[in-house]
């Protein structure tokens, strides 16, 4: 009787461990997100700028590179055209540092995408050919 109980206990514990192993391998190897392996391949194959562009989206990345070239470090900016606290906004903030994102009174407004966002008191700082506008306070800082 005691022997049977011990054996059953052993079988149960072995079964639990087998389930653990199967689920571990299954969730480890399956693609968590569509195209995960393709993305990894792309990221391994490209240099740093290509990686950041891939993660951020090429259109946004190109525009922010343009903005960084034309905004002096230490200035302030307000990033617009994003869903508030979205991953794209956060990546843009991170990418733009040392240009500091603020809510009010920014030296520059960076309007990403095609959205028609009014910016009274700001004028175009540099012409950008793609989707996005770079505005500067007052008469601009040309």
């Amino acid at each position, binding site marked *: 009787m005691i022997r049977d109980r011990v054996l059953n206990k052993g079988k149960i514990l072995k079964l*639990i461990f087998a389930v653990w192993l199967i689920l571990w391998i299954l*969730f480890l190897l399956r693609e968590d997100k569509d195209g995960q392996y393709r993305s990894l391949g792309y990221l391994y194959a490209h240099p740093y700028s290509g990686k950041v562009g891939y993660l951020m989206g090429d259109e946004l990345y190109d525009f922010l590179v343009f903005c960084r070239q034309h905004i002096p470090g230490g200035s302030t900016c307000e990033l617009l055209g994003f869903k508030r606290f979205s991953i794209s906004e956060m990546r843009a903030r991170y990418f733009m540092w040392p240009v500091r994102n603020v809510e009010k009174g920014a030296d520059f407004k960076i309007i990403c995408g095609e959205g028609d966002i009014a910016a009274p008191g700001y004028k175009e700082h540099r012409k950008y050919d793609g989707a996005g506008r770079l505005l500067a306070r007052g008469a601009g800082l040309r």
Partner: protein
Amino acid sequence: MNFIFSLLALEITGAFFILLVIRRTRYDYSVPELLTLSFFLGAGFVSYQLFLYHLSGIGFGFLNLIIVPVVLLILIFARYASRPERIADLLPEKGNPRRWSRTEKLLAAGLFFQLLWIVLLVAPVPVHSHDAVANYALKARIFHSAGGIPEGFFGWNEATVAHPDYPLLLPFLMTWIYAFTGFNDLNVNMIMPVIYLAFLVLFYSQMKKLFSRQYSILLTFILGTTAQVADYAVIIHADLILTAFVTCAFVYFMLYVRTKDRICLILSSVLFGFSLWVKNEAMVFTGAFAAAAAASLVRSEPFQRRRALADVVIAFAVVAALAAPWFCLKFSGALAVNSDMDFSRLTSGRLWQNIRDIPILLNFFQQEVFGPKKWNIFWIVLLAGAIWKRKTLWKGECFYVTFFLLLSAAGYFAAYMAMTGDTLFFYVNTTISRFMLHFCGAALLLLAYLLKDDIRAVASFNTA
């Protein structure tokens, strides 16, 4: 290469503490424990060092940072160069190690495979996850480029940096690495696999002091292959670091309970003290640790009580000393108000709303427990084990684990009820899986205690 030097500098700082302070008390450690505990102590000390630099107006330049590990290395060298015979004291006491069984080798190979998988996922990706770019990595980038914490940083609003009031261990650790490597947010990601590895090795070393080697490696395998643990080793988040500090701190406390060796309690309190630099949630665990330490005092034998009281007082003093600089700033009013939990906005109406939303919390909780994607069958086995061995839950050493877990869980529940920034749905939806991560190490320890006798019953598996 510079990345490795930055880690070696952390090791020196931590090793100084262990070799010159702990070892003198004849505390016995293995080499893996020495290396990994040095890493965590070094990482904690870096927070302390950089924050004191900030308070003293010292910049975060490379020479300013490296001076501390260099001086500590000289002190270590001076102590052992003058009396070479002391070097023998440094080495761990050698036992007569058995050869690893096939089961042990397979489990270790599984963990190695998991680590390689994590490195494969981390290596090609720059910092990118939401909390990393909004909070930890952005702060590190700010500190590195400014050569310190900029004026007024702690009062900045959320438009500039997320949660300037959060503890700074991870941003400081990244700033430390940047001081060696220059700004490189591709290489710095590798700190997370290093933390994952250090956590598992330290956990294994600790488990070996409580259980057999076979059982210890099985427990480490379970911890390391839990998807949620591995997933948080891939991104720059502080949650895995908090899990590591809290788990290892609590296991040292359990070693104290078993051995009554004061140094174990001091190591526990040092790790709990440093955990307060990782995330605000550490306050809950440190409070639960204080209660568990007080319980150990109450439950001690009358003839041991005076010494137990001294142990507990020392432990509390260590936590207070380590946390003091950060909490002085926190309570000075210089920090921006926490946007999620603002007690001035916690009205009875808001509290009642949160209480009415408890079913939402329970729903998300059951999804975590029964959904295998993040947790495999971890929580199912724990719950089943707790029901099956319910009479053991409050017996012997198990009492402290159950007490610690329940008290910490109650603290988290109370915090959810005190949320004011957004709806409870929002908070539970975005946090519960990572909050459960904080508990998983201590929960695994509970499972280890509950099942050790039964696993011993399985042929060829010794847990004693």
